[in-house]
């Protein structure tokens, strides 16, 4: 008997879905050479290879997505599609997003595990360094200046069908097997720890040891998200190595000290520090900067020359233009031109701060921060996740980072959350997100790249079903289609006097008709 190839593939995925995820690094696999490929021969790798392992935020796997979550498109204090600016007239849209995942009711209390509550600064396009792009920081705007990105490599990685693993800031999921005759191809989905789906940018890598004419074999490259598989079956993918970019740090600043052409001797004050242009050598394409603190030089750095062919993703080429000391940071701007009339095109900022992957968020130590990196070297917002488990009793609230939003639980009946809502800092509340069928406070709020698009592939169906069910209950029409418990149907009690009489009439009627028919036959 022949089976439909899609049915066989689906069965394989279902069977394998129950298997545990295995990420190990045995000695044998360490021998496999890691060959990261640049965009073209001779081009250096843009990002350094990571030398440390930083755990990703909890609940980053696909299996940890919100379950039957409530959906809230936004609130006045959690703006959507908010246009910001950069120094060159670009207006990228920004979105506030909140996710709650793996929440549950336990002994009459709502429990959100560590990492379950997420604020995500969600952006539609990549956030680009050195261009003065503004990034929303919980209601205020900061300027994105620079970043540190590394490429994380993991060896001997196994991904069971349907499951996922995290490498750096990327999540790889073995998504599907498609069989054709005795051959098959196997699809890998690549997302970020926040859920940003790179399919829109790069498609999905397809691996196949048997369809050699159609795909690129057992290796793939999505910029610096790369991998080499040694075994791909319906049940699992086994990689010699997998790489994924990780945004280790983004640097933002709240004060612009200067932007424009500067000559030797120009200086700017930032608290007890002075930033001074020591020399400008337009011919060599360099400018020397000094940072003086309490009268003593604490940093001297020559910026340039500009290597336009590698900007702005290449780490060395970009860092050659940037100086940084404490909360002062600046750079030699390559655009529109680095030098003019013997002066250097400088941008200098104060009140700079860093968001480091996995660090405690300085603005609210209950949260950890994770910048979200794109393999291009762009940034895709940042996540703030709760470090400790959150417990909310009925009538209590919990505040998001810096009080930017509030989660309030009003009523719990047994295991059911009858009433809860999310509110912004100004007190604008969502509708009641609870109801008779709600057993958690899982949530998707926002309309950005993740909340409004990528995550829908994983939880959209559940979200729509939940939304409609709650609408039915709110309008009191839940039972209209199936209910008709109507008087006529309900009235018929078994063998009532009326029913007995009707059955008697039925018998008489049948007899009478039989009699009439019999008489007619006789008379013929």
């Amino acid at each position, binding site marked *: 008997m022949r089976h439909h190839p899609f049915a066989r593939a689906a069965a394989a995925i279902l069977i394998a879905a129950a298997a545990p995820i295995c990420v190990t690094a045995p000695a044998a696999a360490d021998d496999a050479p890691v060959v990261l490929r640049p965009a073209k021969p001779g081009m250096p790798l843009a990002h350094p290879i990571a030398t440390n392992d930083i755990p990703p935020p909890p609940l980053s796997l696909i299996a940890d997505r919100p379950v039957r979550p409530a959906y809230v498109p936004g609130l006045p204090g959690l703006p959507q599609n908010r246009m910001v600016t950069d120094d060159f007239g670009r207006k990228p849209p920004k979105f506030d997003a909140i996710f709650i995942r793996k929440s549950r009711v336990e002994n009459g209390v709502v429990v959100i595990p560590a990492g379950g509550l997420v604020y995500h600064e969600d952006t539609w396009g990549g956030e680009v360094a050195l261009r003065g792009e503004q990034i929303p920081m919980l209601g205020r705007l900061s300027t994105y200046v620079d970043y540190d990105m590394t490429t994380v490599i993991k060896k001997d990685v196994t991904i069971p069908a349907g499951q996922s693993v995290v490498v750096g800031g990327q999540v790889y999921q073995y998504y599907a097997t498609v069989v054709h005759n005795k051959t098959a191809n196997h699809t890998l989905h690549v997302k970020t720890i926040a859920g940003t789906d790179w399919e829109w940018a790069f498609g999905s890598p397809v691996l196949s040891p048997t369809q050699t004419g159609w795909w690129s074999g057992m290796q793939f490259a999505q910029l610096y998200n790369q991998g080499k598989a040694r075994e791909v079956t319906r049940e699992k993918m086994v990689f010699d190595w997998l790489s994924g970019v990780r945004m280790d740090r983004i640097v933002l600043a709240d004060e612009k000290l200067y932007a424009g052409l500067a000559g030797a001797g120009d200086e700017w004050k930032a608290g007890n520090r002075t930033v001074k242009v020591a020399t400008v050598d337009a011919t060599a394409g360099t400018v020397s900067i000094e940072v003086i603190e309490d009268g003593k030089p604490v940093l001297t750095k020559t910026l340039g020359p500009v290597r336009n062919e590698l900007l702005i993703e290449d780490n060395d080429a970009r860092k050659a233009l940037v100086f940084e000391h404490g909360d002062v940071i600046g750079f030699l701007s390559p655009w529109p031109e680095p030098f003019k009339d013997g002066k250097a095109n400088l941008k200098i900022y104060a009140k700079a701060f860093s968001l480091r992957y996995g660090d405690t968020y300085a603005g609210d130590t209950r949260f950890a921060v994770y910048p979200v990196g794109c393999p291009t070297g762009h940034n895709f917002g940042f996540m703030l996740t709760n470090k400790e488990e959150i417990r909310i009793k009925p009538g209590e609230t919990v505040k998001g980072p810096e009080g930017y939003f509030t989660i309030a639980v009003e009523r719990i009946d047994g295991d059911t959350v009858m009433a809860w809502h999310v509110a912004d800092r100004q007190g604008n509340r969502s509708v009641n997100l609870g109801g008779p069928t709600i057993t958690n406070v899982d949530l998707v709020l926002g309309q950005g790249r993740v909340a409004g698009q990528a995550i829908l592939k994983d939880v959209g169906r559940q979200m729509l079903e939940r939304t409609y069910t709650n609408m039915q209950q709110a309008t*009191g029409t839940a039972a209209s289609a199936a209910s008709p418990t109507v*008087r006529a149907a309900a009235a*018929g009690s078994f063998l009532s006097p009326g*029913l007995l009489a009707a059955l008697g009439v*039925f018998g008489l009627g049948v007899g*009478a*008709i039989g009699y009439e028919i019999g008489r007619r036959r006789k008379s013929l």
Partner: protein
Amino acid sequence: MTTIPTRAMALSFLGGALGYMALSYLTFKVPATAEEAELCGFVDGDFSASGQFLHAPLDAWWISFTRLQEYWTTISVGLAVAFVVFALIVGRRAGGRTVAGGAIGGGALALSALCVSCLAPALSVVGLGIAGTLLAGVPKWLITVNILLLTGWGVLFLSRRADACPLPARPPQSVTAS
């Protein structure tokens, strides 16, 4: 053998059924309270959380009509009316008293069907709701089947009686040549 006036009976059936539907629609009132609504087949889900009735009048009547299985009553009334018309047509030959009994029986059947319809609350005003109470435990489809059997028997019976007592042929009309 007496020919059964099928065309007249079919038209009578149609007239009775449509007439009943029209009467049902004209006497239907959009319920103002949940208690009133329950009488005509509505449930809590037909009201919003604020107690507002959710359906337009025509929709409400149709919902009530179908939920109360009024289509059975419609068929019953149509059958009864068709039988009354049949009885009146064959009356001359079947004998006056028999016909009168048949017609009254058909009318009674129609009324019994009406008594368990959604018109019952209105009929109870004139005392006919009592029959409705008696028949309340009887499924409407069974009432319809019974009416079909009784009217069917009535048609067979009256047509046999008409055959047994044939009327003399009409005298030929005089023809005058001009």
